[in-house]
């Protein structure tokens, strides 16, 4: 079982979390053309190495997190809130 260090709750087993998806995707604006949406929704890299993923601490603080994880070793390199405004607040406070 992988341990994910939630920035709000501390180190927890991955069974407290829900896997989201590719965290590197920038979703288009609602009015953007179909090609942009097509790429954002369907085009995925199959990375052997470090990739950014979204996870939600579903049995904890319910926050969505960005997790950098090595797909070859399962090693987690970093965990941060997915909400950029919260990152700013955390940085200000620290």
């Amino acid at each position, binding site marked *: 079982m992988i341990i994910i260090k939630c920035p709000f709750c501390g180190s927890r087993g991955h069974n407290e979390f829900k896997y989201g998806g590719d965290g590197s995707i920038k979703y288009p604006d609602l009015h953007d053309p179909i090609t942009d949406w097509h790429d954002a929704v369907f085009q995925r890299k199959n990375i052997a190495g470090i990739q950014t993923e979204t996870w*939600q601490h579903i049995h904890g603080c319910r926050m*969505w997190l960005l997790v950098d994880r090595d797909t070859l070793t*399962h090693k987690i390199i970093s965990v941060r809130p997915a909400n950029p405004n919260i990152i700013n607040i955390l940085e200000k406070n620290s």
Partner: protein
Amino acid sequence: MTIQRVNKDNKNAISFYWNGKLLKGKKGDTLSAALLANNKLFIARSFKYHRPRGITSSGVEEGALVTLGKNASTEPNVNPSTTELYNNLEAFSQNAWPSLYFDFGYILNFLSKFFAAGFYYKMFIGIPPFEWGKGTSAWMFFEKYIRKIAGFGKASRQKDPSDYDNLNSFIDILVIGSGPSGINAALSASKAGFDVMLVEQDFELGGNYLNHQNKHKLNLLKEQLLKYHVKLKTRTTAFGIYDDKCVALVEKFDPSQISKNKIRQRLHICRAKKIILATGAIERTYAFGNNDLPGIMTVNAGKSYLNRYKILVGKKIIISTNNDSVYETALELNNAGANVVILDARAQLSNSQNNLIKNSNIRLLLNTVVHRALGKKCVKLVETAKEKNSKWQKSIRINCDCLLISAGWSPVIHLAAPHSEKPVWSHEQACFLPGKNNQDIIFVGSAAGIWNTLNCEKSGNIVNENKLNQKSEKNSVLPLFQTPINNNKSKNFVDFQHDVTISDIKLAHQEGFTSVEHLKRYTTLGMASDQGKNGNIIGLAIMGSALNKEINEVGTSKFRPPYTPVTIGALASRNKDEGFKLMRRTPFHEWNKTKNCVMIETGLWQRPWFYPFESQKLEDASCNEVKITRKNVGICDVSTLGKIMLQGPDASIFLDNIYINSFSKLSVGKARYGIMLRDDGFILDDGTVWRISEDCYLITTTTNQAGIVMSWLEELSQVRWPDLQIHLTSVTDQWAGCAIAGPKSRKVIEQLAINKEEVSDENLPFMGVKKLKIETIECLIARISFSGELAYEVYIPSDFANSLIEKIWEEASNFNGCLYGSEALGTMRIEKGHVGGSELDGRVTVDDIQLNKMISKKKSFIGNTLRLREGLIKPGRPRLVGIFPIDKNSKFKSGGLLYTSEKISGYPIGWVTSATYSPMMGHYIGLGFIENGLDRSINEEIILIDKLKSIKIPVDIVSPQMYDPEGKKLNV
């Protein structure tokens, strides 16, 4: 073979049953030890050829398997050498019919050509030349006979009566194995102040110390372990190491202490900061003729049975070795009264070994190995081979009653394998040493290739970072994997449990299987319950010599958990029966039960299904509920719907973004039905949204999608639109919900309201929402309808659910109302053509359910772009329709396929998603999807075919709004 206990006292005697016969053993025996002490040497028939098999070891690498227990408590394929003896234990030999001594299947031994490597694969393809590549009629014919005679023990078909537990723990240092290196590792870490747990698979602590004659050192160490508060767990096997140093342990409880209904085993998930593998090494054998005869075992087994269990395994013992480890044992056996001959494959001995046996009458033959063993049900004679001038030749024959083998030692590196680089073959030590690992897994003792006891003890000193200790040491060993002389007359076994021989491996090589992973699967080498602990390396070496490669070039197949077999019950532990999943009950649950409610599982929920009058059946009860609701009034528990409170100044923008229809124009005090899509344009969920105030909405979701929708909305608000000022709160459990539906529902509400006028048609119009006090409790009420009747949903704070529902029911009863469950609810929504979970299955668009008129053109929303993909808007896509049988007496269910009468096979043109008997129509009706929907030609004949239920009926395609299509009943 004449086996005897060295001490013949009757202390600590235990009774047990072997094949139904009462025998005596001693406390502290394993089943193998007790069987040996009773001279039960031949204990099993082998897997494929039904050859006689005896005990081959004193540990996890055992080749013979037995069945424990009877009936529901049957445990097949148990290793007798690791099974602790207890009073009244019942054990049986397996794979023999009609009896162990007269076994019909032994005939297979003579038909072995048919059962060589790849037998099953070849059978699947067909028998050459007649069937080659064509099929498997031979397999179809032989299968049931083969299954009867080839195989392991039989599991019980009854439910396991035992209970299992689970536990999570956290520890600084977990030490696996309590031998000389493990005990010392645990002590050194504990003395340094770490929190340490020491686990041992055996029922006694000590590992290899237990095989020593002198137990003094062990006893001192045991005292220290207690003094330094090391957490000790015996009978506990670490069977796998998973990510982030998560170790899975299975702890067996003392079998003599387990009475009925007590917990038998415990699955223990341990998180360690460091893991010390002091897992020791397993002694190997080598392949020679009839090397599976009873009476042949490892040298270590001979030592263990003598020193630990006080059993001398023979009177005339031959030891065959290629290394130094056997000489101490030879002397001990000799001193215990056995006549010992050592065959050493090497040309010379070191002085220390020579000195050990110098003054004994042990006979030593150098340059000598076993070529073939002879005997019927026990080894009687050994044919040797001797090396002369670099050539091996057949040599003398020696009588014996026991043959002990040591062909080197294999470190137990299995547990670290998933986290390590490939194991490294050490030519010098003739074994695989652990590869580098990326977790904090440290090998000590013989698991790290350290062989003598003193060095093992030193290597356990993990705190004083004397890394020199960690290096493996030189070992005088001559690689020996098989008899050097070709031997086709008798079988040379590589894998005892799966009956894989040298010729099987050679055959696999001839047929082109050169990768180890292929070799393993084709010959099934190492795929039995011991997972090749004994045979794998021999197999690799033989494959290597066939390929002219060194073992390190051949490589090894990857070790995977579990290290030793784990009972499925332990893995399931408490997650069975009512503990299998969480159970959610609505706030009305207890009240519903007092009303004779039958519940149904919906996801995690217990939901009212129907309320039978006396012993009414489902359909009768639910039809009654529909009729009464449509005539008078019915009350339904809808608490399971997901409820999400959405607050904040940007709440309206958020709703406009997630729903296909517009919400910013919804006035306060009104509700609206909404549909939300996924990014890819398919429908995610539907429900109603109630505007409670300017910046506060209550969103309802379907029961099944509630969790998914909540998580999705949180993702959108946190990740995609973090600047929107909104807040989402799940309030599903805070509100109990009940629907009050039917022409008399307003009358019921009027009685509940403090002022009747509050709920008049004017003050609470269709889709109106307001706060309503019932008694003194403030509830929420909305006039919305799923049933198609004049209807309301009342949300009550959960704490007051039971008292208020009683009051509501009292009023409804006065109007001859009823309670209705999910079955009647389903019937009514099908009659109305309202989509439910079976229609919204994730593959359906708004166009498919013909609600595209709802889509707002003034804004965009999630899924709006991709719903317009070519394939999703193409004409002819299946669309929602109603289905009537032409013969009104015929029945059908959901899952049926729709065809035109011209083509009634192959890919259908539609399918049935929901079906019910409609009491209002007086016949079965359904909802489904069909190409072109209602635009199909009326003259066509449509056939509904359900092969699972043998249904084939002609049907009419009708509008999905089957009952009250004008919606008059909403406003009575």
